[in-house]
Structures are given as structure tokens and as C-alpha cells.
């Protein structure tokens, strides 16, 4: 009997709960020109581009009222919830800031060398030469998106954008089939949702046009896709990335990617992914492990496998004598071209960035696509606003711009590259190579994606290999949560929709999957499961999960695997500085 998380759906109906008409009395609604949900690369590029265009059209700017452009950001501020590798393609920054010298960018510049290693085990590293094409990063800038977000936010504010931090957008406002804005989240509720003494209800933010730039597992994005039926028949797939930033003694002189160990590529385990190690200037290094969430062993933990990776001589040498100064986790949409929404717009609405699946997984690129899409969104919105009041009911020009751009050309090219890996590394690798060489044309066709929550899990023994945290090189999850800057109040309402009574297999999978130790199978439940299985853990034994939502760093993994992350109170969660 198989057990997949999809058999235990979370108690949520997103289209019903998160989409609706404005409810505040008309004179209490807040009116803005354009509202952008998400202060990330896509959202901020959109905001900045809007102010550039509005600066050239005073009449249009006036018509947008006191607050022409507002960015709603659920973290403390833009950057707090941003995390990526990242090797950023510079094209979008050049387009958005044509007069700005690249040395003024908040990035670490290009790196002259790159290297790819195949790690067959915990000791050896086989360099792959020449560097396989997807890993070539010539000319790309090492970037911390947390720093980039803060810098873009400053630029946006200088241009007159209202940056509304600590504000979650919890509901999409739709009237007569058109998106008219978003509703901000309540503040001051207790653990059971009750109103505390300082309760402050959210507000209806009414806008002429709404841009959803929420990033991975966007809350309103999911609701909008369901409500307006924008989705592809191919479900989106997800990878979980866990990363750390280290202060190091020896400068790293190359961009490194590794494959295989500690991931197990065989079809039994299906741990598809790899690691990256990027130099951030002379004295810092960004490193992370990325793995598809369609893995099968319930005891697999990306967080702990990353700790294990650090014991490999290749990596240990780089961080020797160093100090961990940052940690974080986030999911990445990896379904590629086929899994993207069929349509990325609806009346009054556009979707840009990771939320629209604009990620090229083989090359691990998404930041510049997000920014390009944000700029297209700004351009399309301005064009349609100029076309008259009802202009924004039709934002298909946004879709056209995206389809005709690098974004879709690149993503379409690698459209079938991720799927074959479900056949295992060697077969998958061979197929992927053929695709690469043929520019995506061979073997062609449409390789179906699968929903990560449909994967059966089993209880393996992967956890026997995780290193015991020493607090210097390797860390436990709670220390990592601390390092993310997360200090969410303990009585915050539970923002995670999930079934709390599930078979042990599923519960353990969630416990190990979550990089922030939100889900735990209590000791006594484990004991009972062991008793049931005559000394061995009985995977089908039902257990009650213990949930600590205040640990959550909002990576989105749970949404991919049978639960649903909804936005917590604005300001909660991590406060990433250098991720």
C-alpha cells in the first residue's frame, strides 16, 4: 500500500478563502495606483520601471493619485525573505539602470573561473572538464538577493515608491471578474486566531492594476491561478534549496557546482540536485544544496545533507577556520516550460517571476528573468492605463512581451531537461546531454511533470549518516533558524494548513524535509509506532504531529508536499541579510 502526501490534503480551499470582493466600507479603503505584491527582484524592478515611465508622463502619474506605486512586502522589509545562490545574469540590471556603472551594483561582480565536480563519495571529487554548458557562468555576477533586494528597495523609494514592509497580502480582491487590489493581513491575533488586545485588522488596498511578484509558492498566485484557471495541465515541481553564508580565511577563486554525493540519484531515492559554492568577494562564500522534492526516503533532510556536504574535503577546505554568518532555505519552481501557468495575466492582474515559474533549472537562473518580467509588467500596465479606464482589463500584451523575450526562449529551450531525471542520474543525465546539444529539440515531445505530493515515501535510514552538530562547522536546525534572524513571537497564529494526524511515513517525511524543524513526531508517538511494528517503526501507524509554526522560514516546501503555507503576520519569519 503506497502512502503519498497527496492523500492527506490540507484543510484549505484557496479560491474560496483567498479571493473575494472588497469588504471595507468604501471610505476606509486605501487607494493606490499600482499595487505590487512582493518586494523581490520582480516586484522591485516593476516598481522602479513604473516610476521611470511615470516620470515621463505627468498626467498619467497624477491620475494614479497620492500613492502611484506601492510594494507590499510580508518580511520586515525587502530582502528579509529573499534567498538565492546566486549567479545573476547582468542583462536585467543593465536594462533597468542603463546609466549606472556596474561597479556601483550591490553585487560581487563576475568570477573568472568555474568548476564542476562529480562527488562519487564523501572523500573524492572528480572535476568535470570542460565545464558542462549549463554551469558556465562567464560574465554573471555573484549576488546576494537579500542585499540586492535592499538596494533595489532604496532605489525604488528614491523614485517615490511606497514600500510597505511587515505587510502580508492575504486576499486577492476581485469584482466583476476583474482584480481590483489586495487585502492586507490582520495583525495581533493569538495562537488560535483570537483577537489580542492590540488587534489591528487588515485593509482593502484598491489599485488600478495588481502585480503578483510573490516568488516561490506565492500565496495569492496560487489562489489567482485556481480562480482564473490559469494553470498548466502539467503540475509545477519544486526543489528545496538550503544555503549558508560563511566568512572564510582563504578567498575562493572560482564558482563551484557539485553533483551526486551526498544526494542519491538512483531511482529508488530520486534525490535529484546538486550543490553550489560561490565566492562573495574576498572573504565570504555562499554555499547551498538543492534537491528536488520528489525524493522518496522519508528520512532524507536537505538541511542535514548540507551539513554532511561540509565534511567533504573539497568543501571543508574552503570553510576551514571560517564562521557561519547566515543561513536560509527556499523552494525553487523546477517544472520549467510545461509547468508554467498557461496564461500569466487576468483582468487587472499580471504574475511575474518565480511565481510564474520563470526559472531555468539546468542553469539555475531566475533572478534576471524575474526582473525582466517585472519591467515588462510595468510597461504593459502603463500602455494599458494610457488606453483608458478599462485598458487594464486586457493585459495580454504583458504575456506577449514575456513570450517574445529571452525569458521564454531560454526556458522553452530547457523544457524537457528536468523530467528525465526521474529515471535516475545516468539515464537522465544522458538524455539531458542530448537535449543540451540539440538545443532542446531532441528527444523533443512533451515530458510530463508530476506533482511532488504524489510521490510515495518510505522510511529509510539516511539519518544515520548525518554528522552530529558541533556548533562550529555543522549545525542543528534550531541553530540554523536562529541564524536566519527569525524571532517570530511564540503566540503567533498557526499559518500552516496541514492535516495533523497522518501515517508515520508522511509525518517523518515532513519532519525531515522541513529545514526549520516546524514539524515533529513527538517521542511518545514514535514509541507507540515502534511498539506497533514490533520494535521497528511501522510507517502506516497514525501519529499526531507537533507543529511549531514560529520556527517557519517560509521556504514553501510544505506546500509542495501536502500542506499549505499561508502568509503569517507581516514582519514574521526570517530576516535574511546576506543570503
Amino acid at each position: 500500500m503506497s502512502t503519498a502526501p497527496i492523500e492527506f490534503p490540507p484543510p484549505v480551499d484557496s479560491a474560496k478563502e483567498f479571493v473575494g470582493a472588497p469588504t471595507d466600507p468604501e471610505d476606509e479603503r486605501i487607494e493606490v495606483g499600482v499595487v505590487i505584491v512582493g518586494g523581490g527582484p520582480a516586484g522591485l524592478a516593476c516598481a522602479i520601471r513604473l516610476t521611470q515611465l511615470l516620470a515621463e508622463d505627468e498626467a498619467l502619474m497624477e491620475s494614479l493619485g497620492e500613492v502611484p506605486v506601492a510594494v507590499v512586502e510580508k518580511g520586515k522589509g525587502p530582502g528579509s525573505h529573499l534567498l538565492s545562490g546566486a549567479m545573476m545574469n547582468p542583462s536585467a540590471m543593465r536594462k533597468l539602470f542603463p546609466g549606472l556603472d556596474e561597479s556601483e551594483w550591490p553585487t560581487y561582480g563576475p568570477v573568472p573561473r568555474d568548476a564542476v565536480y562529480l562527488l562519487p563519495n564523501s572523500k573524492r571529487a572528480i572535476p568535470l572538464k570542460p565545464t558542462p554548458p549549463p554551469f558556465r557562468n562567464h560574465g554573471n555576477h555573484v549576488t546576494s538577493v537579500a542585499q540586492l533586494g535592499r538596494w533595489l528597495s532604496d532605489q525604488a523609494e528614491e523614485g517615490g515608491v511606497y514600500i510597505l514592509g511587515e505587510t502580508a497580502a492575504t486576499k486577492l480582491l476581485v469584482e466583476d471578474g476583474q482584480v481590483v487590489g489586495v487585502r492586507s493581513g490582520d495583525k495581533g491575533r493569538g495562537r488560535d486566531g483570537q483577537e489580542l488586545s492590540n488587534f489591528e485588522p487588515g485593509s482593502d488596498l484598491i489599485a488600478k492594476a495588481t502585480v503578483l511578484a510573490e516568488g516561490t509558492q506565492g500565496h495569492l498566485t496560487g489562489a489567482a491561478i485556481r480562480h482564473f484557471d490559469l494553470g498548466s495541465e502539467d503540475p509545477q515541481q519544486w526543489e528545496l534549496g538550503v544555503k549558508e553564508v560563511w566568512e572564510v580565511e582563504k578567498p575562493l577563486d572560482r564558482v563551484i557546482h557539485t553533483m551526486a554525493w551526498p544526494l542519491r540519484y538512483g531511482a529508488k531515492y530520486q534525490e535529484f540536485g546538486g550543490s553550489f559554492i560561490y565566492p562573495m568577494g574576498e572573504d565570504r562564500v555562499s554555499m547551498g544544496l538543492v534537491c528536488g522534492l520528489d525524493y522518496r526516503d522519508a528520512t532524507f533532510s536537505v538541511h542535514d545533507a548540507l551539513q554532511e556536504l561540509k565534511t567533504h574535503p573539497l568543501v571543508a577546505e574552503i570553510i576551514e577556520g571560517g564562521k557561519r554568518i547566515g543561513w536560509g532555505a527556499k523552494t525553487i519552481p523546477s517544472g520549467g516550460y510545461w509547468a508554467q501557468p498557461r496564461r500569466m495575466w487576468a483582468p487587472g492582474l499580471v504574475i511575474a517571476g518565480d511565481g510564474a515559474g520563470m526559472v531555468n533549472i539546468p542553469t539555475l537562473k531566475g533572478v534576471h528573468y524575474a526582473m525582466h518580467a517585472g519591467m515588462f509588467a510595468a510597461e504593459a500596465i502603463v500602455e494599458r492605463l494610457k488606453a483608458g479606464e478599462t485598458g487594464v482589463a486586457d493585459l495580454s500584451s504583458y504575456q506577449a512581451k514575456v513570450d517574445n523575450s529571452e525569458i521564454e526562449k531560454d526556458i522553452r529551450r530547457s523544457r524537457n531537461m528536468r523530467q528525465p531525471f526521474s529515471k535516475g542520474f545516468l539515464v537522465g543525465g544522458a538524455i539531458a546531454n542530448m537535449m543540451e546539444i540539440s538545443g532542446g529539440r531532441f528527444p523533443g515531445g512533451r515530458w510530463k511533470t508530476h506533482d511532488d505530493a504524489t510521490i510515495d515515501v518510505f522510511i529509510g535510514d539516511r539519518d544515520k549518516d548525518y554528522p552530529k552538530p558541533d556548533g562550529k562547522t555543522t549545525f542543528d536546525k534550531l541553530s540554523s533558524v536562529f541564524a536566519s534572524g527569525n524571532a517570530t513571537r511564540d503566540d503567533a497564529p498557526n499559518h500552516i494548513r496541514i492535516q495533523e494526524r497522518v501515517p508515520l511515513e508522511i509525518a517523518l517525511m515532513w519532519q525531515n524535509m522541513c529545514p526549520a524543524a516546524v514539524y515533529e513526531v513527538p517521542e511518545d508517538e514514535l514509541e507507540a509506532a515502534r511498539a506497533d511494528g514490533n520494535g521497528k517503526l511501522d510507517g502506516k501507524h497514525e501519529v499526531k504531529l507537533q507543529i511549531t509554526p514560529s520556527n517557519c522560514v517560509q521556504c514553501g516546501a510544505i506546500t509542495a508536499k501536502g500542506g499549505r503555507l499561508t502568509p503569517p503576520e507581516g514582519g514574521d519569519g526570517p530576516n535574511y541579510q546576506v543570503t
Partner: protein
Amino acid sequence: MSILVYALHYEGEFNKNSLGAVSEGAKLAKELGGDAAAVVVGGDDLTDELCGTLGKYGVAKVYRVKGPEGLAQPVVDAMAKVISDNGFKYALFGGGLLGFEIGAGLTARLDAGVTMEVTAVRAQDGKLVAERPILQDSQVVDVGYVGEPGIIIGRLNAFDAVESGDGAAAVEDVDVAFEDHSTKATMVQRGEQRGADVNIEDADVLVAGGRGLGNAEGFELCESLADALGGAVAATRAVVDAGWYPYAAQIGQTGKTVAPKLYVAAGISGAIQHKVGMQSSENIVAINKDPNAPIFEFSDLGIVGDLNKIMPKLTEAVKAKKG
């Protein structure tokens, strides 16, 4: 004269904090080759006899000023006068609410340097250097003074009361004309005890319970031990979350930060979110059945064992020892 120490009296006694400050002042004055004196402000309960007892802690002289009790600003006026009249180089306080308020007021009045939350003081090249911890006690800063006088406000109970074996101190009455603003606050009721809410931040001893207690009833073990040790009970986030103990007792990143003389951690793993709230405790004793619990890496005394067996016996033994 080198050092003037403020001594707070309450209900006919000088508190431990003040006696510690007086002892410290006397010790430091000796190292500077000078003298220390104490200053007290209050009403008729400041008898010659009571004031004289400060001599036991090393000061030969006590300046006594008649004034309202429990208010800082009259003491600022008093100390400012005594310091300028006698050329004291340093004013020393043992922390506590009044210590901070008076020290801060003097800073303004005398245009002086002040260091707060001092944990140690040393004499160096004929001057005093104050040490204070910062960044959640992860580092210690050495602070020196530019000009005179220098004001040192210790962390509560940072200084130990040490009897120097000297005789009674001489008492000198000082007449102080209070500033206008010093008379604008009037004490209506002083020192009201509000039994139920024990402020764990002020406790000298804390017995904290974590998930290892097993259930809410486990806190009875903590309460008995705390009682025997003369302390209060605290809790971790996990058990407060589970409803086993109230939030007011929570220690940690999202709870309170404490630095008692003794912190007993029962059934607590020692995750960093908890550690940051209690790591400055002077003595940390941990009881946990898991030998790998992180708390053993920073406890002063760690006991690997079953707290259900250990705590009741420990409570009895402590009671017996204290008699």
C-alpha cells in the same frame, strides 16, 4: 577621598546589593591608595547604629542626609554636594533601580562619564577601569574615564559583600538644599509586594523546566526545588507553548533574559533560542537524560540522569543542608 558609595536601605536594613557595593568600594579605594566612604539618604530610621554597621564592610565614614526615601533625585543632589565638597574621584553604585537612576542623574549634574551594568572593576595606573559585558555577554568592554569624577553602576548583585572586620563607621550629617525639581515627585506607597507575579528577572536562583519534564505536573519538581533553594521557577518556550507554564516565566529569545547566580535547567536541551536568554547566569547546573544535549556544552555542572529520580532527592538534600 577616592570613592563614594551609595548604600540603599530598606525596612531598616542595607540590602545585599548595597553591602556588596560598599565592600567593593572599600577594596578599590585601598588599591588606589585612598579612602572610600558611603552616603545614605533617608529619614529617622537611619540611626547612628545602623549607619555605623557599614564600617564592617570597609568604610570609615558615612555621610548621612535627611531626605525622602526611595526617590533618586534628592540623592543626586546629596551626592553631588558630597562629591564636590570632598573631591571624590568616583561614585559607585550596586545597581538596582535607584542605583541606575541616581548614577544617571549624577552623570548630567557633574558632567561625568558613566558605565552601566558593570560586572568588574579594577585599578590600573592609579585609575579605575570598569568592565561591562555587551552583545548578550558575548564580549566584555573595558571602559576608562576622562576627567573626574567617574560613575560606576554595577549589575545587580555583581559585587560581593565582604566583611573587612573594621569597627563602626563615623557618621557625618550633611545639610543639602534640594533642587526644585527634586521635590516634585512624592512617594505615595513604597515597596508593595505583589506576591503572585514573581519577577524572574530579579531572582538570584532560578529552576527552569523544559520538555524533559514530561508533562505539566513535572513543574511540581521544579517548584519544590526552587522553594528549597530560595528561588523562582522559569520555563522554556516549548513548555509554555504546550501550556505547561505561563508565558511570564519564559526564558529565551522570545521570552526574558536572566542572569541569576544559579540557574538549574531541568529537562532542557539547550537550543540556542533558550541559551541566549540565560547564558550569562553565573552558575549553570543542567539535568538531562540525553548525554548529547547541547546544554552540557555550556553548563558548569551537568548531570546525565533521570530528573524524576534526581530532583526530589536533591530538594530534600538542599533542605537538610540549609537546615
